[in-house]
């Protein structure tokens, strides 16, 4: 039968909402700043694959509000938001003593880790 929302479930709802909301706010801010900076000095951009900046170059670019670095950071933040949501949901299920869903979210995290490993090792 359908169930009412338990306090433990409400915790997970709250955690998931906060992660998604603040991830959206942070990445949107960085994207908006990046576009604004890019429009200050419009350049011609090739519509082909974009070169990846190194971590060092990205940090330096962020310090001087370089548009490419801002957009890269925003993209990374955006990609990481649902990943962090899964991590925190896994922890919230653990705190709420729900081992079945700790396992379920753990499998999702394992797939994400496998994706990163495959991406770094083989797909260049």
């Amino acid at each position, binding site marked *: *039968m*359908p*169930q*009412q*929302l338990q306090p433990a*479930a409400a915790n*997970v*709802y709250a955690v*998931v*909402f906060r992660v*998604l*909301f603040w*991830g*959206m706010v942070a*990445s*949107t801010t960085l*994207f*908006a700043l*990046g*576009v604004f900076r*890019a*429009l200050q000095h*419009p*350049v*011609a*951009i*090739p*519509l*082909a*694959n*974009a070169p990846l900046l190194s971590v060092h170059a990205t940090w330096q670019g962020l310090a001087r509000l370089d*548009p*490419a670095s801002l*957009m890269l950071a*925003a*993209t990374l933040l*955006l*990609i*990481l*938001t*649902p*990943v962090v*949501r*899964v991590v925190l*949901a896994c922890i919230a299920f653990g705190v709420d003593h729900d081992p*079945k*869903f700790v396992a*379920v*979210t753990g*499998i*999702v995290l394992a*797939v*994400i880790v496998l*994706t*990163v490993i*495959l*991406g*770094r090792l083989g*797909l*260049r």
Partner: protein
Amino acid sequence: MCKSPRSCILNAPLVMLYSLHFVAVLFSVAVFAGFFGALLGVGGGIFIVPALVLLFQLPVKLAVAASLVSVIATSNAGGSSYVEQHITNLRLGMFLEVFTTLGALSGSILALYLNEWLMLLLFATLLFYMAATAYITRHHDDRRIAAGGYGDATPDAWSRRLSLSGNYHDHALDRQVDYVVRGTGIGAFVSYLAGMASGLLGVGGGVLKVSAMNRSMNVPMKAAVGTSKMMIGVTAAVGSILFFLAGLIHFYVVAPVALGTTAGAELGTLVMNRLRSVVLKRIFAVLMLYLAYGMLAQALALRFHLVLPSLGS
């Protein structure tokens, strides 16, 4: 098949001035995609990929990569709102994410090595399928809710074991809708396929998941939309990670697209729970048919040099 992911797009030397006009058009297209994506529980990628390919002549792999990132944006925006309203079934969503992420991983690996025309053809096929499904099932939801059919079913073993059933308050009908989740096997299988479509074609795969949850798992349309909206974020993240590491994400294109889809998704979620399912499905079917035709024409032109009459796309 291409020798490497990058070698597939080297024949695309188009250069575009990053002007206010360019950004404004990209942003507007993305707002539209995000709005309808949120209404229908899809990521908006189903609109973004054809728009980037047909309007901006972007290579399909870059369009897919940009679309995947925008799908995450709509998921964060729309997903958070549906979670706050408790329309999302978190437990069901997280269970199905196991299968969508596995599908996304296989789909995005395939996408990196597949020829452009084949991707376009697959995309067109998916759009035709979605249009047909939305139209055929347009009255399904209202009738079942009116008959109380969603709450009368018997849960299957996995649904019972993982407590996947739920309820939400439907503002359009002004009543609480209880539902019992069943058919987890078929749901898991379709979720894998949806994940694969996501990684391969840059879509959220939401329409497959919404359809499977609604028709096979006894989940009302709006709960299916809310749950799908949350799931597509992590599904698209898997594909995005691979595309990012392969250097196929164009940040200058992604930025206005992500901003537009976020704004559109926020708007869409505000009105979704106040509209009737039948209206949503009718709009969706017409849009899908139009885009399917455009993508099919592009695929045939690329592979066989066949020119189909233009419908303005």
